[in-house]
C-alpha cells in the first residue's frame, strides 16, 4: 500500500513521516515520531487523552488523520515546558496532586493550556465544561479544577 509523505511542525520543529492513509495523527505521533506522551484512551474522541493542538485549535488526535497534519503546526504535552522550566500548569498539577495514575494528564494539560490562552480568568464552571471532554477516572476532578484555577490566578498575577 502506498504511503503518504507528510511534512509538519511538531512543538516548533519541522518533522517528516510516512503514513498509511488510514493512520491517525495519534498513531503517527506515537509510532512514527516517538511522542508517546500523547495517549490513546478510547480511539473514538470521547476521552481526550490524545488531546493536541492543531494550528492552535484543541483536537483529539485520534480523530485526525496523520495526513491532515501536512503543513500544519502540532502541539503536544512534550512541547509544554521551556527546557527544564515546567509550564505553570505542570508545576501546579504536581503540587496539588491533580494526577494519580497520570495517563489522562497529558491531554488535560494540553486542554487546560488551550483554555487559559483563550480565557485567562475562567470560573470553576467554565473549567468544568471545558474539561468535560477529558476523562479522568482517578481524581474525581476536584484537585484538577483547583490546580487549573490557581494556575490561572498565578498567571494573571493575582495574589
Amino acid at each position, binding site marked *: 500500500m502506498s504511503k503518504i509523505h507528510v511534512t509538519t511542525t511538531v512543538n516548533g520543529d519541522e518533522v517528516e513521516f510516512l503514513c*498509511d492513509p*488510514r493512520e491517525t495523527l495519534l*498513531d503517527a505521533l*506515537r*509510532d512514527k515520531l*516517538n*511522542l*508517546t*506522551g*500523547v*495517549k*490513546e*484512551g*478510547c*480511539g*473514538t474522541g*470521547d*476521552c481526550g*487523552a490524545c488531546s493536541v493542538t492543531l494550528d492552535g485549535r484543541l483536537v483529539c488526535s485520534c480523530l485526525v488523520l496523520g495526513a491532515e497534519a501536512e503543513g500544519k503546526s502540532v502541539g*503536544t*504535552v*512534550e512541547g*509544554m*515546558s521551556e527546557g527544564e522550566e*515546567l509550564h505553570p*500548569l*505542570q508545576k501546579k*498539577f*504536581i*503540587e496539588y*496532586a491533580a*494526577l*494519580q*495514575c*497520570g*495517563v*489522562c*494528564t*497529558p491531554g488535560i494539560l494540553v486542554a487546560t493550556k488551550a483554555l487559559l490562552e483563550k480565557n485567562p480568568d475562567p470560573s*470553576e*464552571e467554565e*473549567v*468544568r*465544561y471545558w*474539561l*468535560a*471532554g*477529558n*476523562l*479522568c*477516572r*482517578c*481524581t*474525581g*476532578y*476536584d*484537585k484538577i*479544577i*483547583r490546580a487549573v*484555577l490557581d494556575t490561572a490566578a498565578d498567571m494573571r498575577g493575582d495574589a
Partner: protein
Amino acid sequence: MALDEYKPQKGGSELGSEKQGFKVVGTTPDRPDGIDKVTGRAKFGADAYAPGMLHAAIVRSPHAHAKILKIDTSKAEALDGVKAVVTRADFATGLKGENWNILENVMANDTALYDGHAVAAVAATSALIARDAVKLVEVEYELLEHVTDVDKAMEPDAPVIRAGIAEKSVPEGMHPNVVRYHESGHGDVEKGFAEADLVVEDHFRTEATHQGYIEPHACLAQLGSDGKGEVWCCTQGHWNVQKVCAALVGTETSQLRVTASEIGGGFGGKTAVFIEPVALALSKKANRPVKLVMSRSEVLRATGPTSSASMDIKIGMKKDGRITAAEGTFRLQGGAFPGAPMEFSAMCAFACYDLENVRQVGFDILANRPKQAAYRAPGSPMAAYAVESVVDELCNKLNLDPIETRLMNASKEGTKASYGPRFEQIGLVETLQAAKAHPHYTAPLGEGQGRGISCGFWFNHGGETSVSLALSEDGTVQLAVGTPDIGGSRASMGMMAAEELGIPYENVRCTIADTATLGYNEISHGSRVTYASGLATIKAARDAKKKLCARAAAKWGIDEDAVVWEDGCAKPSGPNAGDFDPLPIEKITRSMGRTGGPIVGHFEATPEGAGVSFATHIVDAEVDKETGKTSVVRYTVVQDAGKAIHPTYVEGQYQGGAAQGIGWALNEEYIYGEDGRLQNTVFLDYRIPVASDLPMIDTVIVEVPNPGHPYGVRGVGETSICPPLAAIANAVSAAAGVRLRELPMSPPRILEALEKQSDG
C-alpha cells in the same frame, strides 16, 4: 467546601499511635514520578517499542454463547505482513482450577462464552495489517441459548453454561449455573425480627459497571524457543502475570521476567490477566517481540467488569432505632466463570452494625458475560447500597436521625462482626461523629434537594510482600518495592523510609522492581500497598539501621546494642553515651566496602494486620422532576485512614472512590441486548462522570490507628466506593420522595418512579 477555604490536610490527630512526632509522615511532598507524568515522559503499557516488534490484534466472538465449529486462519496467514496466527491449540494443555479458567477466558476452546470472548489472535508488521487480518479469520459458530441476567440465569429453564462445576456447598435442587454458596452470621434472626417494632424488607438490583481506567490493557512480550521470555505490561501485579503466563504458555515461572509499566488506572481491573499470554504465544510462533494493545471496546466487552447483583434485605428495628435483626441474600453473576464476590457482599453487608442477630447468604451464578474482576472493594458497594437504603427507610418511617441511629448501632472495638471475628480498634463511630459535626450535615438545602447518608466497610488486606532497601555510598537510599504504584504510593514508601532512617525524603528513590529483582509480591489490591509495602519498607529500614549501627559499633569498638539510630546518625548510648561523635549515614556508607560490604535492609513476609476501614458519606442531590436527571450538588467523604502518610494522596483516594460511586449510582451500567451482545462499548455510551457532572468533593481524614501497622496505617483505596451508591439513593429519596431499588438511577428510572408515585 468553597474553593477559597481549601487547605491540604496535615494528617490530623495522632490518636494513640505507637509513634508520635512524625517528621516526614503527614507532610505532602511531590511524588517522584510527578515530572515524568506532566511532561509525557512516563512510560505506560502501550509506550514500549522493541526492534523487530510486531503488532497483534485479537479475533473475538460476536455471539454471547456459541459452539466454535471451525476456525480457518489461512486467508489471514496469507495476507502480506502477517507473521503469526494463534488459537487455543497454541497454549498449554492439562491446566486445572483457576489456571484453566483463566486460559479458557484468555482464549476460547470449543465454546464462545460471551460477546467479545477471544477465539484467535494475529501478529503482523503493523497494527493496521493486524486489524485487517482479524477480519480474514473465518470462524464458524453454532449458536447456543444464552442468558445474561442474574435472576434469569438461576431460573429452571436457563441454558446451562458449564455443567457439573458447582461446589458441594450449593443447596440441592438449584440450577447448575449456581456454582458457589456462602452462609454466615450469628444469633437468631427470627427471634430478632419478632422483637422489632418495624421490619422493612426489600429487593434491590445493581447492574454491572466497569472500572473505566483510562489506559486500555497493553503489553510488549517476547518468548524464545528456549522458553525464556520478557513481558512489559500495565498490571496491578506483575508476579501474578509471571505465574499465570508461565502456566498458560507452558514455561517455567522463573524463565519469564515481567516488568510493570506505569499503570494508567486499575481499580482492581488490572489484577487479572487477559492479553499477556496471547502476546507471548504469538511471539513464540513469530520469533519476534509482539505488542498487544486493547481498544476501548475490547476493554468494555472482554476484560473484567463487576458482577451484577440481585439482593433481598430484611432489617428489624425498635422505635428508638435499635436494630434487632438483619438478614440478606446476595445473588451475583460474575460472567461465565466462578468467582463473583458474593461472599464479600454478604460479609460486608452488615459489618457497620453491632448486631445480636444477623444472617447472610450468597450465591455465585454463571451467565454469558465476561469473567468479572475486582473493582474497588469488590462486592461491598452493592451490598451497602441495599442495606443502607433499608436502614434509611427505617429511619424515615420511625422519624429517626440517620446519623444518631447509625451511632446507636455502630460496630466498635470488641463488636462481634457480622462476618465472624471481633473488631480490634476501629473508626466507624469517629467517622459518624465527624460527619455529624461537619457543616455539611446541617447546611440548609435548596429547592428540590435532598440529603443522604451512608456508611461503608471494607476488610483491607495484607498479603505476600518483599522489599529491598539498598544504601548507596553517599548515604542515599534505593528502595525497591514490588507493588505497582497506582496513585502515588512510591511517594508514601519514600516518606516512610525517610521517616524511619531520619533522612530527607528527597534522599530516597523508590522504584517498582521487576520480577527478577525481589521475591514474590502479591498484586496491588485489597488496599494493601501503603499498609503492607509500607510496613515492609519500615521493617527493611529498621533492618538497615541495625546493620548501620553494627558498623558504627565495630568502628568504635563497643557493643552493637550500645548504639542507637537517631536523626540519620549512629550514636553511642547507655554507658558509652557521648563518648564518640554521632556518625552520619553517609560516613558509614562511604566506607562500607571496607567495613563488611554493601548494606541492604530486607523484608520478606506476609503481614496479616491490615486494619479494617469504615467511611461515612454525606451527599446532597437535586432531582429534576421534569427530566428525571439527578445532580449531585454537594459531597463530603469522611473516612478512617488509620494514619495518613501523604494526606493529599489520601484525599485523592477518597475523592476518586466517591466519583466512581456517583457514576455507578447515576449513569454507569452494562446494557446487553436481546441477542446477548453488549450495546454500550464506547465511552460515549458507557458514560463515566465528566468534570461538569461533579461538584467539589470535600474530605475529612479521620485517624484511628491500625494496631497492625507500625505507624497505624489502614488501606484507604477501596472503602471510598462503598457508601456513595446508598448515600445518593437516600438523597434522591429525600429530594423526590421516591425510593430507587435498582441502579443506575438513570433519568428514565427516576421518571418511572415519579409516575408510579403520582399514580399511587
